[in-house]
């Protein structure tokens, strides 16, 4: 016996809309049981997780900070994935963007000008895009698998950053600790509004996501992306070049990841250090699919995932549970969201196969 997923002929539109709420309900039930089993009050646990972070201006800012890079990267990746280009290396492009942008405040630290910040942002985008150009070139001209190349370049970027902050860019006045000098005030991304520390990075994220949504919906480019993603042959008949699409989607997603990198470094860290990302580039892949590869959906998904981080900390504190518990809860949530989405598109079929009858390949 085996289990197969079979695509539904007519997925229900109603359930497609309800799916996230259904998933939330299931998580609340399963999570409630989990908290009750470890002897914690499930009601206050769920309250701290989902509601408390939304009631405080401060934690709203924190959610925005956490969501900004996820949305910015995720929106770029959605274009890539829609066009059937699998950029897995956004984490590396994020880091390279941060490094390229940081050239201005680190190497030219004596130069003070209002141009510093705009230049940093532009450099950040170029840095990320150039780094994504490597797997793009390899795929377009050497037919290399971009999943592998982009992923492996992540580790190179991480070690390059590590080398920079320990070596040539190490701050002269940090007791030999592996950090660059602090960015000057004009190199810091300003805060969005006075009530908290959320910075312009969040605005970039929203603008980019909405812009990409408009592009996908109303422009020929959007059509080209969809067609080439669904069938390269059909795209070619329509006169679209899949090679050019590789370049376009990789440079775009790399550039946005780079912008996210320099925004994060300039807005919240204020210098380069060996680790500047808790895995935003990878988490953004989850965000992109959670948002169903729709840039507007990705805004919601990014905010939602950020909420689970901030809420997870709140639960740790109010109930004094281990952070493992909050991670299990996050896992439950993602599991239900993704499985609800899957089951709306697919149905489960039990296949009782007899010897000699089973077709090879089976479930996926």
């Amino acid at each position, binding site marked *: 016996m085996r289990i197969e997923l079979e695509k539904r002929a007519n997925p229900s539109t109603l359930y497609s809309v309800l799916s996230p*709420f*259904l998933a*939330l*309900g299931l998580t*609340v039930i399963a999570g409630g049981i989990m908290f009750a089993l470890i002897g914690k*009050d499930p*009601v*206050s646990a*769920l*309250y*701290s997780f*989902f*509601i*408390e972070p939304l009631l405080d201006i*401060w934690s709203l800012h*924190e959610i925005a*900070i*956490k969501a900004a890079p996820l949305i910015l990267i995720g929106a770029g990746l959605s274009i890539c994935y829609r066009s059937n280009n699998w950029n897995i290396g956004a984490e590396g492009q994020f880091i390279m963007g941060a490094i390229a942008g940081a050239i201005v405040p680190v190497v030219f630290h004596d130069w003070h000008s209002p141009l510093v910040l705009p230049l940093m942002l532009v450099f950040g985008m170029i840095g990320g895009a150039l780094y994504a150009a490597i797997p793009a070139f390899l795929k377009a001209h050497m037919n290399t698998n971009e999943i592998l190349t982009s992923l492996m370049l992540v580790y190179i970027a991480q070690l390059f950053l*590590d080398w920079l902050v*320990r*070596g040539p860019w190490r701050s002269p006045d940090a*007791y*030999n*600790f*592996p950090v660059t000098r602090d960015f000057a005030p004009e190199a810091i991304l300003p805060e969005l509004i006075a009530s908290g*520390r959320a910075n312009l990075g969040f605005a970039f994220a929203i603008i980019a996501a909405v812009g990409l949504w408009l592009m996908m919906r109303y422009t020929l480019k959007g059509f080209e992306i969809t067609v080439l993603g669904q069938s390269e042959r059909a795209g070619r008949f329509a006169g679209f070049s899949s090679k050019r699409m590789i370049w376009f989607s990789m440079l775009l997603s790399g550039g946005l990841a780079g912008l996210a990198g320099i925004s*994060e470094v300039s807005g*919240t*860290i*204020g210098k380069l*250090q*060996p*680790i*500047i*990302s*808790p895995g935003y580039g990878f988490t953004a892949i989850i965000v992109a699919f959670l948002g169903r590869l729709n840039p507007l959906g990705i805004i919601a998904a990014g905010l939602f995932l950020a909420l689970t*981080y*901030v809420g997870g*900390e*709140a639960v*740790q*504190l*109010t109930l*004094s549970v*281990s*952070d493992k518990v909050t991670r299990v809860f996050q896992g439950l949530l993602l599991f239900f969201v993704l499985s609800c989405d899957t089951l709306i598109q697919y149905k489960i079929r039990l296949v009782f196969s007899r010897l000699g009858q089973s077709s090879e390949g089976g479930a996926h």
Partner: protein
Amino acid sequence: MKKIILALATSAAVLGFAAAASAQDKTKICFIYVGSKTDGGWTQAHDIGRQALQDHFGDKIETPFLENVPEGPDAERAIERMARSGCALVFTTSFGFMDATVKVAAKFPDVKFEHATGFKSAENVATYNARFYEGRYIQGLIAAKISEKGVAGYIASFPIPEVVMGINSFVHGAQSINPDFKVKVIWANTWFDPGKEADAAKALIDQGVDILTQHTDTTAPMQVASERGIKAFGQASDMIAAGPNTQLTAIVDTWGAYYIKRTQAVLDGTWKSEQVWDGLKDGILTMAPYTNMPDDVKKLAEEAEAKIRSGELHPFTGPIKKQDGSDWLADGAVSDDGTLLGMNFYIAGVDDQLPK
């Protein structure tokens, strides 16, 4: 569905406020951990200190903590959350929390902060650290006596002064017994990664070291040493359970007394920002029992420990040459604290290039 959530939320809100009100009269002393509180090393030592603190004051205080807080942008949020939740005193227990601690402290002048092992302080930010190098010196003495090949392996975390100082102290201790003693160093570039730490341990043993010491947080190197049948030193916590026939001794961080002292100061209203760097004599670090060694080595270690406690012996006493052969300390000269805290050079005898 929405109605249910709304109902849940409202009832929860009421409960939440009720809980908050009953907790009002306890003083909150809060902790931020970089690792898991059961890591068997650095963070566990802090958590044992936290429990000692809680036991000492009982119902008078609460000691909430956040564990596995990454160094970086997430740290600032975690620390600010603590400050906002009404903590009177926040201990941030990893070097990488330094800037975040100072930043948050500026926003919350009424909350006191204590940052472990850093060098930035403020009106409401104190720093505290232990003179771990005193323990490393004793380990060096033991290593030189026990090792047959005269080569020790050292699993280091990051090339920061704290760690470089430890390596130098270990080497200097060993060379006071065996002038030809060598140390091989592997930089794991992490505080907490059992896999990497174990790999480093294996690599060092394959390179022919027959004694192992570490400046990382987990018991993985101790386990590898046990499997390969060589001796090793524990770090931050007593790791004897991971190597009953392997551990010679361990530098045990005993933060509890310090946490109690500082909490008392907060309760009394006498807390002041200080830069504390205590040693063996203050009880902020202790040596785990000297085990798996002959009696004469044990006696030597105990004597050195007593001398360090009494102040008769400073581990960094000349003559000491730097790795490049130039003189650092003249005969009988003692290093000042400033040089140690900014230490970015090896002394002679370290078989490694300091990462630049």
